[in-house]
């Protein structure tokens, strides 16, 4: 893993353009002690976030024509022009476990739940939900003691309202990318107000202290009181009960950390957000703002962000697209549909560009916040029409504290099925997770350091 640190930080940090102008992030004091090299300055930590877009993309407008540096940005990647030196496009990666392997239809459900886990989701509409632990949760468990929240799961589309999400798969598979264990999906929060309250709490300081004390005794009580329960429960029921107590322990650990860690600071003028905005674009913006804030204030170092659920059939009327996204993704080769698909893909990429721009506008230590991040953007489907899970659209942004050489297009040979999970293992190295395999990984992904 040390080999990744071999290149000098200076080298990779060269050529970072000037920050974009963004209102609330400017002119504010440091929020963390590595922000501006004071006396207590420490090197900035590595953060990672995973952004998911559904239904694959129109690959012809995604994949750069040339490899290496200096490639031309295809239509969908155009919004990234301002941060092109901060991105690394990865072509030719495969999520093999999203393939049927005898399970028949359900590519959307599998695409989402295999994306970060590299595990074959069990085909079930109810009994025994199972996928695998996801890369973000491995990282989260490793970094848990550093921040108030081990991880932050957010999204802009809540779970499905009705069953039958995808051919015999429970809806949980197509709406959840983060899995704490193979049987515990981590639901995402879609309400900006609630995300903010998770990060910064609600009420005054003294109210919070009081509340914590109360909650502690309550949690002690349930632990003590429920000891007699498992004797009278069957095996599967005990498993559910374990889930409960894992959550209880989680909260207790968070309380302990909150006591040890400094109070998170809020940038001046940051408005506490309200409930979910009606307009999708506004919703994406505010969630991006919150993600940036979480990293900036060091509330967490790991996050997943689902832009829309897999198989989502949202129309995008505000960019002139009246048809549902999923319907369009089955374009059948129709050029008009492909163009509309490209426009949706580009719209989502604009949100990514906004997020990256913000991260880059925040100075931190020897560079910017973006330099100390790896932001993954991608889908578990490649072409939505074919439902293929090889040659996935995946790109990274940020230099992961100087351990990733950006501004390039890396191509892994087609037909070789290089596991996407090899990328995850390599990313876990960068937070010193000490993990050699994850899901269907076969090793580490070569070439990230250049």
């Amino acid at each position, binding site marked *: 893993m040390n080999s990744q640190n071999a290149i000098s930080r200076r080298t990779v940090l060269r050529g970072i353009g000037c920050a974009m102008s963004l209102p609330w992030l400017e002119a504010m004091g440091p929020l963390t002690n590595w922000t501006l090299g004071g006396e207590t300055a420490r090197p900035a930590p590595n953060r990672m976030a995973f952004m998911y877009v559904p239904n694959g993309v129109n690959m012809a407008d995604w994949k750069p024509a040339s490899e290496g540096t200096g490639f031309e940005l295809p239509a969908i990647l155009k919004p990234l022009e301002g941060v092109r030196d901060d991105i690394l496009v990865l072509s030719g990666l495969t999520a093999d476990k999203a393939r049927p392997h005898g399970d*028949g239809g359900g590519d959307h459900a599998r695409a989402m739940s295999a994306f970060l886990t590299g595990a074959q989701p069990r085909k079930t509409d109810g009994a025994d939900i199972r996928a695998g632990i996801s890369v973000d949760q491995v990282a989260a468990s490793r970094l848990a003691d550093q921040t108030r929240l081990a991880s932050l799961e957010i999204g802009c589309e809540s*779970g499905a309202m009705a069953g039958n999400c995808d051919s015999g798969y429970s809806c949980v598979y197509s709406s959840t990318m983060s899995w704490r264990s193979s049987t515990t999906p981590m*639901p995402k929060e879609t309400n900006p107000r609630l995300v903010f309250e998770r990060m910064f709490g609600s009420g005054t300081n003294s109210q919070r202290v009081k509340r914590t004390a109360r909650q502690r005794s309550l949690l002690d009580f349930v632990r003590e009181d429920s000891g007699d329960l498992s004797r009278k*429960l069957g095996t*599967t029921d005990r498993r559910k009960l374990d889930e409960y107590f894992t*959550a209880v322990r989680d909260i207790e650990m968070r309380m302990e950390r909150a006591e040890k860690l400094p109070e998170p600071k809020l940038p001046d003028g940051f408005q506490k957000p309200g409930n979910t905005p009606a307009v999708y674009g506004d919703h994406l913006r505010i969630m991006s703002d919150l993600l940036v804030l979480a990293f900036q204030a060091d509330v967490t170092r790991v996050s997943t962000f689902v832009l829309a659920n897999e198989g989502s059939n949202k129309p995008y009327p505000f960019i002139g697209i009246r048809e549902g996204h999923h319907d369009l993704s089955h374009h059948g080769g129709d050029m008009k549909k492909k163009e509309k698909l490209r426009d949706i893909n580009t719209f989502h990429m604009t949100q990514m560009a906004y997020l990256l721009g913000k991260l880059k506008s925040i100075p931190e230590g020897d560079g910017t916040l973006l330099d100390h991040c790896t932001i993954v953007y991608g889908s578990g489907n490649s072409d939505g029409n074919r439902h293929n899970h090889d040659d996935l659209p995946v790109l990274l942004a940020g230099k992961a504290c100087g351990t990733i050489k950006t501004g390039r297009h890396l191509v892994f040979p087609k037909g070789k099925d290089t596991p996407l999970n090899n990328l995850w293992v390599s990313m876990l190295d960068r937070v010193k997770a000490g993990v050699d395999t994850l899901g269907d990984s076969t090793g580490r992904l070569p070439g990230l350091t250049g």
Partner: protein
Amino acid sequence: MKFWPRRYWIRIAMALALGTLLAQRAIPAPPAAEPVAVSAGGAGTAPADYARIHTFLQAHCIECHGPTKQKGDLALHVYKDVKSIVKDRKVWEKVLEKVRGGEMPPKKKKPRPDPVETEAFARTIEGVFYEADKNAKPDPGQVTIRRLNRTEYNNTIRDLVGVDFKPAEDFPSDDIGQGFDNIGDVLSISPVLMERYLAAADAVMRRAIPDQLPKPMVHRVGPLFLKPNLRPRDFPGLKFRPIVDTRKLRTSYALPGEGEHLLRVKAWYERPDGDWGEGDEPAAKLGLWVDGKLVQSFDVLAGEKSPDLCETKLNLKTGEHQFAISFLNPGGEDSGRALRVGTFEIHGPADTRPASQIMLLACDPNLPEHERTRAVLRRFAARAYRRPVSSEEVERIAQLADQVQAQGGKWESAIQFAMEGVLISPKFLFRVELDDRPDSSGQHAIGDYPLASRLSYFLWSTMPDAELFDLAAKGKLHEDAVLEQQVRRMLADPKSHALVDNFAMQWLQIRRLKTFAPDTGMFPDFNEQLRQAMFTETSMFVDAVFREDRSIIDLIDGDFTFLNERLARHYEIADTNGNPAWDKEIAPKGQPIRGEGFVRVHLADRNRGGVLTQASVLSVTSNPTRTSPVKRGKFVLEQILGVPPPPPPPNVPQLPESATAVASGSLRHRMEQHRADPNCANCHEHMDGIGFAFENFNAVGKFRAKDAGFEIDPSGTMPDGKAFRGPAELKKMLSGQKSLFSRCLTKKLLTYALGRGVEYYDQPTVEAIVSALSRNDYKFSTLVVGIAKSDPFRQRRGKEQSQ
């Protein structure tokens, strides 16, 4: 490429044909027991069945899954008889799936079995399973401990604590399995949810037992405003109003709460200076009247400088009351004597504790505090855990209260805190079915308390009420007659609307309406009012079918619905007799449909009527810009007939560009072109065939004669080949499929009731209910009672049971 060709549709056709047959014979039978190419009479004898299976295996499977090779770790030669096949059911279900799906034998292997041969093989295996199920050891299945979902949490808090403010609103959404959001295996607890539980318990208990009670309310009436009132500008600055005769000063007020009230008025006695007339009394008598009765008289001696305070405490009921003040011993206008009265005040009710607090803290005041704590908490925990609680449990909860008091908190705060503990306990959040033999694989009846919970969450989506608890305590609930009587009582209770909100709205996928976003350019008149009206129509319609105990077949083709003005306009219906809005010569005329309220409407034109032709269902099965005959057809097959089409093959082949050159023509015309591809034709011909019946309804359920300028052709065929034209004819055909529909609905409702998927061993239960329905005019209550009395509902078992 694998497809779901003729074989599947043969199955459906057979099922449809058999459905009709069954309705006549009213006997349970397997949905598809009649093998195509084998001897009639359903599954044959076991050796004959095995011989048929064996022949197929030898010809097509053993080469790769036999003694020499075991591809995919599968060896099929080891199965020497029907019994061994039944024993390894899971393996053989997979075999069935692969063979039927055309995935096996692999394409490249020659010779391929012909479809008739394959179907015969599959049906033989099905027949074997069916026979086995009929004779199988009864098995109630295993239900995973269920945590309350958001709806159940809200409702349970409402009934347990008496505060109704939907605390679960901020919880993460519940995951869905088997089409419903109450499936035990799928409902998990994440750290976020646990945080929300803590916050909700805090918020709920602070509302139920507030930290600080509000001061009693005061209602004041100035002297000029007592009736008959005076104009203030005629009497500037008048603080005390004179009364000189027997006429009363009156006022009325609607009291917001019940209980002790304080009535107060200041008064002084005005008399001629130093000159007491003969017979003058030393005091003026002030009379206070409530609702026409003199409640008290006061002697007023004071002069202007320090008026007397006249006040009294009274128990008064909520609502309008008449209050009056009078001078009981006046001297008349010329006497120079007057009773001067000031502002009249009503304080109260004195007890400002919310009803929840009074209910939760009610106890014998003579008990020592220590015991009161225990009594109050025992009662609360027993209701929260939905079973009697042990003394140890009470003691542990009470210690939470003791902690607060030890730190100087008052008793109310102590109880508030202890109850918070109860609300985050897994014993409350999960529907725990305590069992002395939790891992015993034998089936055994659940106790009366778990049964009470199963009933109440099934029919009401909330905790049991006092009557259910009472019957459970007496150990009577499980008795057949008692159980049935309770189910009927619960169905009659308004709380059973939960079955509409939570079961029917999920079954019919109406919850998707909330996020349905039709293109505003194409459907400019779609707005929130219309969305809400669509939702309400279906909700009220289904509620009527359930509540009036109608035939479930009415759900498919009822002759009535509920409309408000907005939706009636959408449907172009003029009045409550369902006359069309464009027909001026209407008779008999009904009441016009006006305003936001919904009225019951008789439907003369049967193209509307039943859930399938309601705008809600028509919308959720549409795309944002156009109708989707595929989705509508699939909806009918899946949700109504219970014969879901096979999932699309994992890799839909890309159509060659030339084939998709956009043709002009109606949607139907274009789709038919699309189906020129033989790969798609087989399945879509039938799915679309049903869907086309609804083409006269656009993507928001409005009637139309043309699509994109082309006349609509709403004709189609059922998978069994019967032709129909338009929704009315299709619904008529569907209504004839009573057996299929009732089997489908039974399975859906059973899934919802049990919180688990329906398994093969539930087959006898399902068939028994279907048969009972056919004997009882398909009445809804027969279905519900059938489920409540069934073995899977009343029994449980532990570990996996082997066949």
